[in-house]
């Protein structure tokens, strides 16, 4: 890794995550000695199904607690914080786009985007929400409910929502898995472009070679995650 720990936006050290096995005992899912992302850097994460990509994103975002190790965001150790504090940090500094079911069905596109601003302390800026929907090409769909949008349109709303709070890190977990290849291209283009414009760092999980080939830094989880090496040996 070229960056030093100090100027890294995200810096992971000796991170471990276990899950209880159904038969008893613990299974190590993540064992990451070192992983870093610089400010505004765009990283693609690849790996086999079940290798722990989603788990890593969950642990970084604080949705799932890690068992040991260190996660620093802008040099601040996140492992020391309570769950509530991690929630606040996630609300303020991270955006998240999931593979499916990103939007709340009871809320319109615009309301879904505004929801992204609801849980962080700070101003609710409706113009920002409208601007982002414009930029993802949905200015004429703002008041549609998710059920009235195509899957691709829903994902674009999700991207707008993930960025509305001006995060410093966007976590995207296979955001194009349900989109046809032509749109997949445009979707990734959109995410990469928006992140670049707002200088948001991006950690993107994908199975697609085409998608991965667009990015300069592509990480194989098997290289980062020691749990996989020991398991496969």
């Amino acid at each position, binding site marked *: 890794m070229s960056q030093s720990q100090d100027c890294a936006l995200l810096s992971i050290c000796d991170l471990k995550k276990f899950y209880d096995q159904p038969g008893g005992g613990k299974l190590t899912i993540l064992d990451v000695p070192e992983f870093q992302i610089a400010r505004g850097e765009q990283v693609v994460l690849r790996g086999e199904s079940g290798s722990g990509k989603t788990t890593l994103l969950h642990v970084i975002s604080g949705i799932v607690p890690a068992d040991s190790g260190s996660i620093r965001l802008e040099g601040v150790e996140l492992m020391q914080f309570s769950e509530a504090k991690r929630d606040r940090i*996630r609300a303020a500094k991270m955006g998240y786009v999931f593979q499916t079911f990103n939007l709340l069905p*009871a809320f319109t596109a615009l309301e879904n985007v505004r929801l992204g601003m609801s849980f962080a302390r700070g101003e609710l800026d409706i113009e920002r929400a409208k601007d982002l929907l414009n930029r993802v090409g949905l200015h004429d769909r703002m008041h549609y409910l998710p059920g009235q949008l195509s899957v691709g349109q829903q994902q674009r709303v999700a991207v707008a929502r993930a960025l509305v*709070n001006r995060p410093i890190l966007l976590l995207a977990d296979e955001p194009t898995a349900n989109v046809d290849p032509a749109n997949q291209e445009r979707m990734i283009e959109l995410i990469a472009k928006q992140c670049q414009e707002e200088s948001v760092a991006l950690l993107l999980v994908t199975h697609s070679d085409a998608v991965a080939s667009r990015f300069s830094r592509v990480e194989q989880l098997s290289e980062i995650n020691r749990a996989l090496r020991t398991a496969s040996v």
Partner: protein
Amino acid sequence: MNLLSIALRNLRYRKLASFLTALSMALGVALVVLVLTISGVIEKSLEKTSNVGYNLIVGAKGSPLQLVFNTVFFLSQPVENVPYAYYMEYLPADGRQKEYQRIGGELKEPERSGLYSFLMQGGFAIPLCMGDYVDEFRCVATTPDYFGLLKHGDLNDQDYRFSQGRNFVDYSEDYGFFEAVVGSQVADRLGLKPGSQIFASHGAESGQAHGQGFVVVGILEPTGSPNDRGAFVNIEGFYLLEGHVAPERDEESGLEKRGTAQGPQRQGVLSKVRLPVEKREVTAILLKPNGFAAMSMEKQINKTKFAQAVSPIGQIEGLLGVFVRPLRWAFLGLTSLVVIVSAISILVSIYNSMNDRKKDIAVMRALGASRDHITAIILLESLLIALAGGLVGWLVGHALGPLSNAWTMPTTGVKIDWFAVQSRWELWIVPGLVFLGTMAGAIPAMAAYRTPVARNL
């Protein structure tokens, strides 16, 4: 978006369930308000009306409550009579002799004063004859003292006033003994004015009307008491009507001697001939004894075989305690159950939606919502349904109150106003709704609090 608008969006998304649960809450609260209003009105009217300005009602032996209902509220079946001579025992000082001189007839020991006169100094006794009707209204035969000595109002300090005309008199040059005063409702209903004639019908509403009518000389101002529903006729004229003459009775058996119920010979309406004392009976005597004599007097009278004395306030208090208040609690219990059941339906409705909403909750958590945010949203949803439904129910309950006037006002004489809070229990409705809404929301909110995020993304 704040938590409140998020909760509102969620409710709007499940329109039907939200509407139905709010409706059931509205229904429950409306019923509670209605029960509180009606029971409050009944209780108030009973308490108010039993505060009558006399202490005792004396009448023939029988049901004390019936005597009170008959005399004070003009309800229930007419009761038996006592002789007029018995009434005369209650007249203060030389009242008995004066009454005898006024009426004439046969009376034992006419020169002595009444047996209870020593307890009646400064008080009064007013005779009533009841049992006849003027249309559907009770005909009350009494003396002018009824409006001269009695008062009305919440504090019992207001004189009876006449919106038209005047009180009737014992004998008038125009109409003899046949003058009448009617309550405001009677006048409205029957379209009576001073100068109109009313006819008492014997025994029942549908009974045969007497040939001799009474001329209305006064119409009472509304009092909010049963007197608004009374047609008051001069007792002297009443005795002269056919069938109102008491027969002679056998002293041993008390059975009536046939052919003795004959009225006096009179020439024309203006004749000054009265029905003699021994042929008169009264249904009730309103007694206001001197000072604190009422208690001992009530006991003394009730010891006799002949008559009973009842205290209207005591009887009504008894009625309230034994019947009205327990009944109110029973109704309140039942209607509260409806409210609780609707709170449970809120619980069930929200709880059932939790399965569909696990993903929503996970997404919100991923957007940075804390467990407390999620809990608050669910609690708000439950509270909003409970409060919105409850508020509508409260309004509907109060709107129904005045609508029930048509039914309650004629019997209670109390008008239910819009938004008149009849019971202090009503103040508990809002805290109660907040409590129930919170309780109903607590279980789903707890489930929401525990929803694992990672597994639902």
